[in-house]
């Protein structure tokens, strides 16, 4: 069992070392090898989680309060699979706009593998401080990758993200310090004495995590950063790396949640505000990548609905929603990158007639867009239905309305894009596509979008796996 867990974290790390040592012309090949190898360890891990529910491991056999603990439950496995798929899809040759081979291969691929390693480590970690180190590494590497475009807007967005990221860690660290002061243990598990955690420490930690997860109104860094990042980077950040802080927030909330305070209502309200703001902002964006970036802001708000609806079923629905939206967003980012490479622009106004010029990208956008809206038969609907079910059972009317509203609002900006790209009569624009992206890049994006839909049609196994997701406490 430990081999599987070790493989998930240490194999990408080994690939990172190999890429640094080997001459740069092998970088991409070694990176792909590493990204193909570590998911193999996920297979036994998934089987184990399916059999035993949550799997825990004390590193170095030191008992938990002393040593660092790893914990893998249904949600972790599902997110790790998402990370594997998106990382691989992102590694497909992104010709043109940013070709790692031409410049920066020596640093792009190591940073890419470092991001995957850090994400895996932060997902499996069940230790508050280890989570801090993991999140800090994710922020640092994400900022470096966002600055890949090496132009002023990208560097500004990267700098803004780094500064806010450091402030976020600051608050989180203070919270961790107070937790250690009170309980004497850093383990992400039910507090030993059962004494409810002091809510100030909890608020500090949650504030820090909300900055890192880009929860409205602390989301200011996200649209510029994802908008400027190259396609594959944006895909991995929007789908997985950016969501690690949110998953951490869920875990901390479910373990240390005080039951009588007004905190869940506040977080839920923030979530609803994020859904409305993100969707409205996405409606007015002129560039495709920024539309997907603002849709990420809305999605983070949607996923915060789990906090006021704290129950394993809500957690299951939100986990499924995170998975499916991960696929859809990654597909849209990759498609947007391909369009940017081929047509020289991703300005929505000038992409008319896309379905004839770049049929694969148009179909990817359509599939992913419909998944974001949550229309059947895509996965988005299943996630939305589960959360609605829970919201109804718990009479959480505010959350029920927000979830229903989010479907409508996302429909507004998705169908706006689809109308402007596929159904607008093509004006004089040239028929030929100056630089067609390689077929592999188009197929990678399409494959991710298809995953979002296929999982929607056969959600059984994933939902059963997520049912084992009750964090920390109840297995």
């Amino acid at each position, binding site marked *: 069992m430990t081999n599987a867990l070790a493989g998930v974290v240490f194999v990408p790390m080994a690939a990172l070392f190999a890429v640094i040592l080997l001459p740069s012309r092998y970088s991409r090949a070694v990176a792909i090898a590493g990204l193909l190898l570590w998911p193999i360890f996920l297979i036994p891990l998934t089987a184990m989680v399916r059999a035993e529910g949550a799997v825990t491991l004390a590193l170095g056999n030191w008992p938990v309060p002393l040593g660092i603990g790893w914990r893998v439950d249904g949600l972790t496995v599902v997110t790790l699979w998402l990370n594997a798929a998106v990382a691989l899809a992102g590694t497909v040759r992104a010709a043109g706009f940013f070709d790692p081979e031409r410049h920066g291969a020596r640093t792009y691929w190591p940073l890419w593998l470092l991001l995957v390693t850090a994400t895996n480590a932060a997902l499996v970690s069940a230790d508050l401080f280890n989570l801090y180190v993991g999140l800090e590494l994710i922020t640092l590497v994400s900022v470096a990758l966002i600055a890949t475009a090496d132009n002023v807007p990208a560097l500004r967005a990267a700098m803004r993200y780094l500064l806010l990221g450091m402030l976020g860690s600051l608050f989180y660290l203070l919270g961790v310090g107070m937790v250690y002061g009170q309980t004497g243990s850093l383990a992400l598990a039910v507090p030993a004495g059962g004494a409810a955690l002091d809510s100030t420490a909890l608020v500090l930690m949650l504030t820090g995590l909300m900055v890192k997860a880009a929860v409205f109104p602390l989301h200011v860094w996200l649209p510029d950063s994802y908008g400027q990042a190259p396609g594959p980077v944006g895909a991995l950040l929007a789908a997985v790396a950016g969501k690690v802080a949110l998953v951490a927030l869920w875990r901390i909330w479910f373990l240390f949640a005080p039951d009588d305070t007004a905190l869940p209502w506040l977080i839920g309200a923030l979530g609803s505000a994020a859904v409305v703001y993100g969707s409205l902002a996405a409606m007015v964006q002129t560039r495709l990548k920024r539309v997907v970036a603002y849709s990420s802001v809305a999605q983070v708000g949607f996923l915060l609905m789990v906090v006021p609806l704290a129950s394993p079923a809500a957690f299951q629905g939100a986990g499924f929603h995170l998975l499916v939206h991960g696929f859809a967003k990654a597909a849209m980012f990759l498609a947007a990158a391909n369009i940017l490479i081929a047509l020289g622009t991703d300005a929505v106004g000038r992409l008319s007639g896309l*379905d*004839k010029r770049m*049929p694969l990208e148009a179909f990817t956008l359509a599939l992913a867009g*419909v998944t974001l809206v949550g*229309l*059947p*038969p895509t996965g988005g*609907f*299943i996630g939305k*239905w*589960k959360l*609605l*079910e829970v919201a*109804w*059972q718990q009479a959480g009317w505010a959350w*029920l309305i927000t979830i*229903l*509203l989010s*479907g*409508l609002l996302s*429909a507004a900006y998705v*169908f706006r894009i689809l*109308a402007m790209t*596929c*159904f*607008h*009569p093509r004006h004089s624009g040239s028929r030929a596509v100056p630089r067609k992206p390689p077929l592999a890049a188009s197929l990678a994006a399409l494959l991710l979008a298809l995953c979002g839909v296929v999982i929607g*049609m056969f*959600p*059984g196994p994933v*939902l*059963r796996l997520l*049912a084992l997701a009750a964090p920390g406490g109840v297995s």
Partner: protein
Amino acid sequence: MTTPWLNQALPLAVVLVSVVAAVIIFAAGEERRLLRIVVNLVAAGIKFALVVWIGLTVLAGNAPEFRYEILPGQELVLHADALSILFASLSALLWLVTTIYAIAYLERSPNRARFFGFFSLCVTSTMGISMAGNLFTFFLFYELLTLTTWPLVVHSGTPQALAAGRSYLRYTLTGGVLFLAGVLWLYGLAGSVEFTPGGTLSGLGEEYAIQLRVIFVLLVAGMGVKAALVPLHGWLPVAMVAPAPVSALLHAVAVVKAGAFALIRLVEDVYGFELMCELGLQLPLMLLAATTIVFGSVRALQQSSIKRRLAYSTVSQVSYIVLGIATGGLLATAGGMVHLVNQGIMKITLFFCAGVFGLALGVNRVKELDGMGYRAPWTSACFSIAAIGMIGVPPVAGFVTKWYLGSGALAVGQPWVVAVLITSALLNAMYFLPLLKRIWLVRPAPGAGPAEYLGRIEHVALVGSAVVTASLSVAIALLAAHRLSPLSWVLRIASEYFP
């Protein structure tokens, strides 16, 4: 007659046939015209044959059913009962005819692969709606219908089409949200709601009376959008901007009928007629239907464009179905259900003819119809037959509906319904007869030549399909007593609900 395996596969096959066709058409791309035509026709043929086969098995007594547990505690059920065969046969038959018409109509226009791809997906959703066995599955296909018809509405890509698409989405998606809220609430109260004749919620009457009323309003609003009940009908006339085959499909076969069919399921199989009356919901529904009938007809009077006039006529005609269902009793319910078929066939004839007038003669406004009888005799004849049918004059199908609705209302003691029927018949006459007068009794303007078609085949295909549907609407009326006619089929269904 059918092995258990076949029992499972039939309903699934009938839904998936057009999905396969859609995938082939999308993959084939724009250039392969012949392949697309063959795939379209073959798929339509297979689907119709499958529906007939299922119809016969249902007639023979057993009910094919396909179950798949999509979510823990929630199943995807495709169940073929007499009512689903009624709607499935209508949609399969009219899809076949509309495909022929559309192939001819869109001969030289761009984006045909995209059109026919979404066209077949659209019929998949109508087939899914007709075969749905529980409210959850029904909702799945109901939302899929919105998704697949939107591209058809915005097909031409003109600014007006895009505006129509936006308004279509605003209405249908909001309706979808209300429908989802209702389904969810009902799921909370009664678990997964299977369609059973006489309603599954009869037991819950007293306990959740208020909640059930609110849910009923939510569901009627959600379904009312597609059934174009006032004030949710706004998107229909605006969607007239789409090409003729799309308007024919949307009005006669897919969207509007899906809304009406949903209301039938709601009243007959979810709530059950008695529970609806118990909760005092019968009268408001009847009034809503009646106002829509009159409002639709009045608005139709004021329209100068032929297609918008037909659109408003659809708004009013669909509410006949709702009125019949709401009135209750064997005869009125039968009248309402049979109108599902009659209105479909008559209205599609009118749209076929309007399409021919527009395409071959460039005539779109009522004023330009002068002397059409001389310029396009066959099409005008079909137009007239269907128009008479809409007014309710025998021997065309419309008469059958009005007769049963009227007698049914009297039998149940709702005389005011007859008054509504008469006024609407008068209004129909007032907005159809002037058209017929212009077509037949006025000489064509000098220099207005006969209809020009792209080619011989197109001519036969376009006019032929109109003739087929027109003769069908007459045949339905004349052979009403025949065992397999829609009327007898509907009487058999209604007798289940009102023994």
